[in-house]
């Protein structure tokens, strides 16, 4: 009897991928396509123990819906995620011993599909368990710690992704920090301007009728186009006032990127503030007024805490969106992980593209998790 159809579907997808698609690809150099390596050929000798969590996972759709069974499945999924990464690294190391230095081993489509299926199974199982945001975050952290341990021990060093990292170590750290800096610099004005604007828009109909259409219009402008539109006026400004240029304000680089990103972040933040305020029960506001609080006190002590979860949701969307859009800012000289990504695109070195993209995804997931925890915490309004 199938108790969990979602898990069955995911298992089927993962099995099909592992059988039909390459787990790894091995290429003679960075540019040429690699020959496919199937999962079965990788499982040699002691590596068969990796199949233990797989067997548990494969049987999981038929397990009884008991808490202990669900915990076992969740643990198996988490363990398999780390094991999959270890397996790829181990095989890459084995291949590197016999191959010339220029040869590269990349992660294949089967690897990514199995990783995604297992991650989704884990997410589903945690949801069925009714795990709190904290418990979920702790599980994901444990997996990340496992992968970080593999990285630190050098077990993954022969994968092409890590080879690219080794070749770009100095620019990588700078790019990562620059990326985070741009996101923070963009979110600050968005918060400072967006939240008051959202609150004001919620109170005044006329402002709402003007603000949101304008912000919607800004959102529809493609990011590259907005960056491009800002170059000319900012370059002209920097040319007329050289002191601005010395301060770093110019047509290219971080400044136009931050302005454009702040504009894009205004909509989710303002919407979040407006929606949060609208969600405050009018009974609470009336009661507060009745006991003599001023408008400012009502805002600060009643409306703000009750609106906070929705405001944080808006911020979460703005933050994740900003992380993604910053990638494109590399095209106007702002640097960041997008620069690494575009270098890889232009050189047709797809693992270099991954070196830029994977940290961005990780950053977005981390920020998302942080905000989930914050929202969960803010939902428990103190009495």
């Amino acid at each position, binding site marked *: 009897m199938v108790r969990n159809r979602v898990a069955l579907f995911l298992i089927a997808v993962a099995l099909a991928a592992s059988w039909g698609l390459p787990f790894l690809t091995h290429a003679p*150099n*960075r*540019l*040429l*396509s690699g020959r496919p390596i199937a999962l079965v050929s990788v499982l040699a000798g002691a590596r068969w123990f990796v199949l233990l969590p797989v067997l548990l996972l494969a049987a999981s759709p038929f397990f009884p819906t008991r808490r202990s069974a669900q915990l076992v499945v969740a643990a198996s999924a988490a363990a398999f995620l780390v094991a999959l990464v270890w397996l790829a690294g181990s095989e890459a190391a084995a291949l590197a011993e016999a191959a010339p*230095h*220029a040869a*590269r081993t990349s992660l294949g489509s089967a690897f990514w599909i199995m990783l995604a299926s297992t991650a989704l199974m884990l997410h589903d199982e945690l949801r069925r368990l009714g795990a709190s945001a904290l418990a979920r975050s702790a599980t994901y952290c444990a997996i990340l710690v496992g992968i970080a341990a593999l990285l630190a021990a050098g077990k993954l060093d022969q994968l092409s992704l890590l*080879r*690219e990292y080794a*070749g*770009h170590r*100095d*620019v990588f750290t700078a790019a990562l920090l620059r990326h985070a800096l741009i996101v923070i610099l963009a979110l600050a004005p968005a918060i400072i301007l967006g939240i008051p604007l959202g609150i004001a828009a919620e109170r005044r109909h006329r402002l709402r009728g003007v603000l949101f259409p304008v912000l919607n219009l800004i959102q529809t402008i493609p990011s590259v186009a907005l960056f491009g539109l800002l*170059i000319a006026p900012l*370059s002209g400004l*920097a*040319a007329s006032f*050289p002191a601005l*240029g010395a301060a770093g304000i*110019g*047509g*290219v*680089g971080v400044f136009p990127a931050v302005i454009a990103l702040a504009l894009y972040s205004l909509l989710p933040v303002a919407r979040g503030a407006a929606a949060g305020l609208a969600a405050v029960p009018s009974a609470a506001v009336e009661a507060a007024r009745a006991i003599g609080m001023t408008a400012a006190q009502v805002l600060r002590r009643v409306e703000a805490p009750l609106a906070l979860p929705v405001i944080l949701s808006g911020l979460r969307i703005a933050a994740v969106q900003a992380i993604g859009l910053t990638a494109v800012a*590399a*095209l*106007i*000289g702002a640097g960041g992980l997008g*620069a690494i990504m*575009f*270098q890889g*695109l*232009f*050189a*047709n*070195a797809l693992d270099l593209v991954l070196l830029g993209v994977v940290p961005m995804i990780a950053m977005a997931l981390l920020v998302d998790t942080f905000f989930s925890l914050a929202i969960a915490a803010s939902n428990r309004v103190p009495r």
Partner: protein
Amino acid sequence: MTGRSLRWLALCGLLLFALRPEATAAQAPVRVASKIDTEGALLGNMMIALLEANGIKTVNKLQLGPTNIVRSAIIAGEIDLYPEYTGNGAVFFSMPSDPAWKNAKSGYEKVKELDRSANKLVWLQPAPANNTWVISLHRDLAAANHLATMTDFAGWVRGGGAVKLAASAEFVESPAALPSFEKTYDFKLKPSQLIVLAGGDTAVTMRAAAEQISGANAAMAYGTDGALDSLGLVVMSDAKGAQVIYAPAPLVRGGVLEAYPKMAELLEPVFRSLDEAALRRLNARIAVGGEEAREVAADYLRTKGFLK
């Protein structure tokens, strides 16, 4: 005026004198940038290594962005030095059909004069290489049909040769690119003989021809592309000069060159030594071998004795 305020005034005066523009320019580090491609990384790293080794402080702004971004940055004074191609003068000054660009020496002199008078930018000694558009053929195809030059290629195409060229939309449409080849060598490629890609990514086109993806057996490439030799592609040499000559040269802001005049004599011998074969070899180490651009640049400078 009290003694104390007098001393403050003197101190401020001294400070202002010390911070006067000429003084700060001489102490300001040179901001070295490059375009977001392999050769830019190579030449940019060479320039940084050379300047640093000779006591000129630099700021690394390599891989800044595409051509128009880097160009507007240097004109706006946000960067000081980057490697540019002489042939791009045709684009910057909107004179694409001027025959001067098809000669290395006249092209260099022309862009040097134009940029000096219009933007106070100085073009230093170029390298004897031509990073222009070329058509390259799969090695087996070239050998089987005895094709080595564009004239051979054109004759073969006219005679019904089964060519399938992977190229970017810009290469196919820009009058300076494929149409210029077709006019000079008297041949015409039919749409069925073309695989048109969106971006100008020669790594993709070369890989397509090398692995014969979608039937491609010819690829658009740049003259100094590193992957040409290792992918087994043969360049059809352009004897009649159908293409604009793109020689890499350092482009520096006039004011910065005045502050550091020895920059010119440091960079000249290095660029003079970089011919097409050398650039291809070095580009190959980075693009195909995956070595770090900084290492490859430093290694070349050390081997040639430019760095101790």
